[in-house]
């Protein structure tokens, strides 16, 4: 089954607002008012690790948003900055996500990706929660993300935070194996004219424009538009796969920071995208969103925020039938989401965060004869509440306890508690440990899949499909080992239950239906290191190890023999170099190696061979306002596969070279 589009969805969390831009980051270590001095020295330590460019990018006015040392977050968090995205040559959000070493990113074709953390990177990967500016972009259709409609003017992305490991206590259901937070810059930080354009072999042409100005004192705005046209990938034989992709997007953002205590943000986007599919038909998607946010500062220690958004997605997906011709599936999803949060100090030792949320979704589905979701129109209500307390046990030890409680229409009440312990062993070293529970609640695919026109349907949703659950045990260490060398290490052991399986109908065998017959454990290691070799030369390295033991529960069955959810590399590593050369030249290279994938077709396993790939970017700034860049992606092979069972329709990803001109005024 292949979908090809967007949707918003689920769990939102906008801690971003008042924990600084750093999400989880602010949860941890920090005393109450009593620890002003150590707070200062922490801030000094953070600033000293910044480059001149980063220092020049700090805002001096943001009250109560002291830069949170992200090295202090008791979670496996990695942050990709806007500057790193620019220097990598990434031309889309999925490409930018390759910079987060704690993610698996596998490109399926020109416009689809499988992206996951800590395994479970199936074709319909469903254990990651993804948000753009506090808006969930994950579809209740299959609990995954239509990556090909998640776009933004990359220049205006401030940062992407990637947390591997569960985040259910704050973010709720589906933050099972990880959370991705994509944060755009404030309109205040995107003033002036920005123009980009270029083209090349696969990324055939693209252009983007943004203009930012002031509506009044301290009220800033920006408007942007962008368009791209990406070419075809190929089959293993080298034959053209006819899957080109075009997309246009426009949007705006207004930030009112006039009040000392009240800030307002209003933003919205609209997009249209079309893709060629191999049957010769065209898949289309369009959608838009509008989001408003009010944040109120009560005092240095206390604030609250209220966010409301509406998101609409429209998807037209040709589904091929047994005759090789396409029938059309359309899906229209409307999401209304309200989110409230409040943070305050309780005495000198407790930092409390609590919040309430409500989401309403209406999914209207016009099925193709051989694939539909019934009932055609489904309304869903999701209620949630969470509370978390960070307790200072002694000067450098913090215990964070919390839970989320949700009520959804499928499985009713779900609890996602967690406990985290953090020890700031020295100013430069932090150790943490966590135990968390997370759930992946049923999606429409799991429950509602039907083949309406078939007398003998092959596949159907499981009416009794329950939530998948995870208990995760994590340990982490982060350190500034020397002035120019920092590192992070996290180790996890995950215990899963009720993982999705596919069962026979007793007697007739078909229809096959989704059940929860899998269980098992995974464990792994994530390691990163950053080394500033010289003022002008920086290295970054990342390595992941993953071992998965997912199996059919005793006495039960799965037609895929437990193999359908885990097409993951056991090892992967990356190495990136970033150089500032004389003559205002930047030279960046990124090498990655991904271990063999075992994709299944039923109970049969096929492999995606392990591969090395290399991206490179050479850029020259002849003047302050102008940037000329040449980017090469996947340079080591003419074409190579990244995902899928080896059959005639698996696509390879081609080498791509493009040029880009950027003008900032």
């Amino acid at each position: 089954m292949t979908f090809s589009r967007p949707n918003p969805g689920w769990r939102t969390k906008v801690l971003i607002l008042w924990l600084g831009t750093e999400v989880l980051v602010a949860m941890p270590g920090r005393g109450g008012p009593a620890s002003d001095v150590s707070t200062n020295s922490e801030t000094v330590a953070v600033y000293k690790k910044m480059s001149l460019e980063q220092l020049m990018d700090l805002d001096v006015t943001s009250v109560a948003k002291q830069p949170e040392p992200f090295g202090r977050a008791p979670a496996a968090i990695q942050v990709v900055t806007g500057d790193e995205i620019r220097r990598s040559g990434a031309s889309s959000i999925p490409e930018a996500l390759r910079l987060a070493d704690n993610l698996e990113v596998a490109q399926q074709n020109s416009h689809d990706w499988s992206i996951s953390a800590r395994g479970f990177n199936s074709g319909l990967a469903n254990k990651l929660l993804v948000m753009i500016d506090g808006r969930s972009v994950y579809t209740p259709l299959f609990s995954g993300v239509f990556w090909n409609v998640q776009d933004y003017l990359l220049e205006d992305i401030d940062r992407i935070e990637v947390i591997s490991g569960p985040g259910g206590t704050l973010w709720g259901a589906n933050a099972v194996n990880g959370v991705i937070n994509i944060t755009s810059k404030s309109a205040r930080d995107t003033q002036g004219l920005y123009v980009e354009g270029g083209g090349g072999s696969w990324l055939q042409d693209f252009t983007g424009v943004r203009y930012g100005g002031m509506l009044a004192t301290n009220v800033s705005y920006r408007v942007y538009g962008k368009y791209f046209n990406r070419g075809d990938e190929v089959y293993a034989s080298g034959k053209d796969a006819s899957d080109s992709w075009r997309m246009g997007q426009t949007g705006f953002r207004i930030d009112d920071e006039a009040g000392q205590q009240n800030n307002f943000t209003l933003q919205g986007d609209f997009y249209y995208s079309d893709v060629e599919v191999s049957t010769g038909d065209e898949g289309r998607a369009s959608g838009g969103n509008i989001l408003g946010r009010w944040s109120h500062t009560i005092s240095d220690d206390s604030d609250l925020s209220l966010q409301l958004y509406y998101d609409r997605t429209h998807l037209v997906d040709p589904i091929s039938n047994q005759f090789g011709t396409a029938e059309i599936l359309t899906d229209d999803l409307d999401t209304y989401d309200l989110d409230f949060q409040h943070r305050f100090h309780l005495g000198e030792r407790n930092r409390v965060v609590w919040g309430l949320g409500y989401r309403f979704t209406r999914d209207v589905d016009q099925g193709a004869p051989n694939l539909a979701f019934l009932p055609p129109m489904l309304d869903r209500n999701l209620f949630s509440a969470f509370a978390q307390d960070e307790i200072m046990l002694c000067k450098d030890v913090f215990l964070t306890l919390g839970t989320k409680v949700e009520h959804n229409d499928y499985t009713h009440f779900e609890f996602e508690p967690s406990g985290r312990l953090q020890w700031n062993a020295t100013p430069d070293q932090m150790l943490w440990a966590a135990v968390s529970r997370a759930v992946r609640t049923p999606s429409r695919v799991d429950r509602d899949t039907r083949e309406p026109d078939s007398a003998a349907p092959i596949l159907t949703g499981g009416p009794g499909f329950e939530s998948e659950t995870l208990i995760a045990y994590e340990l982490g260490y982060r350190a500034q080992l020397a002035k120019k060398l920092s590192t992070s290490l996290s180790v996890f052991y995950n215990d899963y239950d009720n993982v999705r399986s596919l069962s026979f109908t007793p007697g007739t065998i078909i229809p096959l239906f989704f059940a929860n017959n899998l269980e098992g454990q995974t464990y792994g290691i994530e390691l990163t290191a950053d080394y500033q070799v010289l003022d002008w030369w920086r290295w970054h390295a990342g390595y992941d190890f993953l071992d998965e033991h997912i199996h059919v529960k005793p006495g039960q069955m799965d037609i895929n023999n437990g193999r359908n959810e885990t097409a993951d590399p056991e090892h992967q590593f990356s190495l990136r170099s970033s150089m500032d050369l004389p003559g205002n030249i930047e030279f960046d290279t990124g090498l990655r190696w991904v271990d063999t994938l075992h994709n299944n077709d039923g109970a049969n396993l096929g492999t995606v061979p392990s591969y090395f790939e290399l991206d490179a970017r050479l850029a020259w700034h002849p003047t302050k306002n102008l940037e000329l860049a040449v980017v090469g992606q996947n340079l080591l092979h003419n074409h190579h596969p990244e995902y899928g069972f080896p059959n005639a329709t698996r696509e390879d990803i081609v080498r791509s070279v493009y040029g880009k001109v950027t003008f900032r005024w």
Partner: protein
Amino acid sequence: MVTGWAHKVAGPFAGRWLGILLLSLLVAGNAPGQSKEYQIKATFLFNFAQFIDWPPAAFGGADAPFCIGILGDDPFGNYLDETVRGEKIGSHPLVVQRCRHVEEATNCQVLFVSRSEAKKLKEVFAGLKNQAVLTVGEVDGFCKDGGVIRFVAEQNKIHFRISPEAVKKASLTASSKLLRLAEIVPPGGD
């Protein structure tokens, strides 16, 4: 940026009063915007020391301290001290020195000229003539009068301007990275 704003509105006295006001606010633990500005500026000063080369003659000896001076009212509180604590530039341990008069500052390699000295800039630069001192300031006219680096606020962010002419006069060498990130002050400019 409170300081810049107050300076424009209240004139040159603002620096001193603001210093006192700032101190009282800090005691009350309530001036995040203000303190952040000088935390960042303190880090810049520390960075400048690493991106500029001094002639060997600028130091008393191989292990002589590398001195960052603050001339006039001190807007940094203890931030600058915390920033340089335990740090070295090459073999020279970093120290902070607070000065009331420019004569006390001639042993410094970096001299931050406080807003309180805005009226006395010509005196200050005359007192430093032919010395290998990196002068850093934040008031209008600083580079025009002969200062090397001037902090400027752009959209609430701290940027800096650098005068290659003044770099040369002070016998210093600025790294290309610093020059690339800075706005270059043309001769006679500010």
